[in-house]
């Protein structure tokens, strides 16, 4: 049984920021002048997802079946006041966190996996394919696929495949198949392996393999971040947060979240874009897309199969260091997010792995929840922010994009 109040917190529409942006979003662009990679999206994406990708509608209805699935996997996620953290920091204000780690798969990724799998299933698709870095997206895809009675195949960045065996096991429990990327399953994977049989893989390579595999086998591809439709689905985070804050008579002075491709941060903050809330996006210092990224067209995938997008990017060939926060290793940031950073609406921070580890410890000890290494970067920004005299008295809300219970190998003995 669901509490009626819980059902009412879940919005019945996703929010699409595109019509509310201060400037137009540059359209996707073909990488190959001879062919249309935009046309290719027809082959690999469910029709409804593609429609949502290019829609001008501010709101998209959430199908009843997806609302039911959201309830099943633990939505609405709780908004919790971090009182112990406030006390430890001696912060004269309020800190709240939206706990996306409370979903069945332990992160926000399920918010878009469910509708993507739902639309694919409704269009008669029998199998979906995707990539995963740290494993959270692959896990979400596998669960969403099984809930919608379809198969799933996941290309997992080789270094994570070897270092995170538990993720593989969960995907298997959900009925999905995983392959380490680069793999022998695609021509692109084979070409990488022929040059370096021990290649550790990158998310860009894994995306290329998943897209290639979908094309080769007539399957549909699931998109984990960056694309507009994904961010639209993730708006459920921010919309729930808004209602939860309203219910307790609070306003967010500041919203903070971490950025890999940008979907959790964008989904959390975009529903507040017309408010006066300050917004701070945190990336990893080791992947300095905010401070050193170039704003221009770049590839989403390393192989250049997908259309190019205009975004802040370190370059598709950027090889990120092996930081623990695998979800923050992506070279670019979603176009709408990049645009809002460029125009100053969203501020940025970059946090070192050392600072994020300290934040992880502090949060675990005060609040009892082990944050994901990615979310720990956002917590580091929160700590820094709340220690500044000028921020005392403010209400700070951050998105805990996932828990870190499957990442405990990162914790120092």
């Amino acid at each position, binding site marked *: 049984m669901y509490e009626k109040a819980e059902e009412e917190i879940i919005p019945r529409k996703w929010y699409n920021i595109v019509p509310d942006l201060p400037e*137009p979003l540059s359209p996707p*662009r073909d990488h190959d002048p001879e062919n249309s990679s935009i046309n290719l*999206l027809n082959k690999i994406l469910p029709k409804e997802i593609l429609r949502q990708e290019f829609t001008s509608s501010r709101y998209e209805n959430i199908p009843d079946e997806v609302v039911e699935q959201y309830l099943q996997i633990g939505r609405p996620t709780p908004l919790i006041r971090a009182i112990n953290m406030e006390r430890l920091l001696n912060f004269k204000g309020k800190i709240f966190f939206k706990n996306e780690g409370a979903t069945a798969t332990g992160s926000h990724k399920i918010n878009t996996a469910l509708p993507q799998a739902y639309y694919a299933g409704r269009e008669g698709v029998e199998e979906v394919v995707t990539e995963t870095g740290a494993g959270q997206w692959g896990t979400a895809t596998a669960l969403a696929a099984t809930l919608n009675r379809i198969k799933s195949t996941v290309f997992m960045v080789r270094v994570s495949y070897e270092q995170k065996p538990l993720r593989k096991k969960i995907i298997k429990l959900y009925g999905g198949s995983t392959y380490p990327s680069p793999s022998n399953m695609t021509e692109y994977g084979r070409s990488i392996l022929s040059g370096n049989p021990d290649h550790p893989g990158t998310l860009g390579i894994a995306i290329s393999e998943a897209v290639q595999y979908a094309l080769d086998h007539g399957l549909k591809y699931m998109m984990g971040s960056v694309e507009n439709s994904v961010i639209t689905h993730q708006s459920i985070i921010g919309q729930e947060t808004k209602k939860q804050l309203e219910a307790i008579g609070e306003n967010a002075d500041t919203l903070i979240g971490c950025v890999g491709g940008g979907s959790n941060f964008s989904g959390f903050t975009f529903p507040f874009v017309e408010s006066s809330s300050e917004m701070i996006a945190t990336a990893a210092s080791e992947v300095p897309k905010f401070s050193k990224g170039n704003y221009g067209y770049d590839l989403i995938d390393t192989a250049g199969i997908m259309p190019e997008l205009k975004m802040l990017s370190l370059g598709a060939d950027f090889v990120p260091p092996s930081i623990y926060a695998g979800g923050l290793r992506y070279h670019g940031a979603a176009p709408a997010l990049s645009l809002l950073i460029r125009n100053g609406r969203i501020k940025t921070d970059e946090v070192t792995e050392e600072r994020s580890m300290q934040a992880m410890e502090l949060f675990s000890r005060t609040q009892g929840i082990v944050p994901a290494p990615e979310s720990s970067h956002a917590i580091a920004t929160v700590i820094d922010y709340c220690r500044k005299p000028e921020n005392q008295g403010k209400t700070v809300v951050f998105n805990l994009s996932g828990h870190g219970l499957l990442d405990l190998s990162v914790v120092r003995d």
Partner: protein
Amino acid sequence: MKLALYFTFPYPDRETFRKFFDETLKFNFEYLELGIPTDHPYYDGPVIRKTHGKAKENYSEDMLEEIVKEANSRNIRVYTLVYYNHFVGREGEFLGKLKSMGFSGAIVPDLLTDYFSERNQLISKMDKFGMALIPFFTSSTPDSVIRDIAGKTNGWIYHGLQPSTGIKVPVSTDLIVSRIKELCPGREVIFGFGINSKDEIIDLKKSGADGIAIGSTLVPCMESMDLDCFRSKIRMLEEGVNGI
């Protein structure tokens, strides 16, 4: 419902272009859009992109002027579709030349995405030369930008239905038409990108579209120099526009 025809000038070569242009004049259409060939027509789809290369090799300003004047003499308004990156930094000279050739205005597809901060300056410069900036909007153009640009211009509005020319992804045509009509009440809106069937034109008409712009669908006929193919396509467009 109005019909606007787009050609990259002079694709595939001057002689063939002339033949097809003469054929075009036998039909009824209101607006002629002439694309000025450029090295990087990056917001166009592959069909139109290919036309730019050959057109650039055969480009002739004298012939362009001749075509524009001839169209004007038949009460057809002529607009250029030109990327801002083609004339940025030499706007005065370029716009002056267009005006003297007889162009009524210009559609600048990269203005709002790549030169957003220069939009007002370009509108003012075009006003000075008596040239209309035809606003180019898509589903990605925010409401506030549409209202702002529509308020600063007077001509018709060009709305791309698809993310690129000649491309077809699923779109909600009804929603696109009703949104732009609501944001720009009373303005004439011509829809383009990916339209290639009579049924689509009839649906657009039912949705309240004031006109359609056609380009990519005519290119294969010109490429194969097939005048019969060209005639039957334009007839089909006319039938759609007239709701037959």
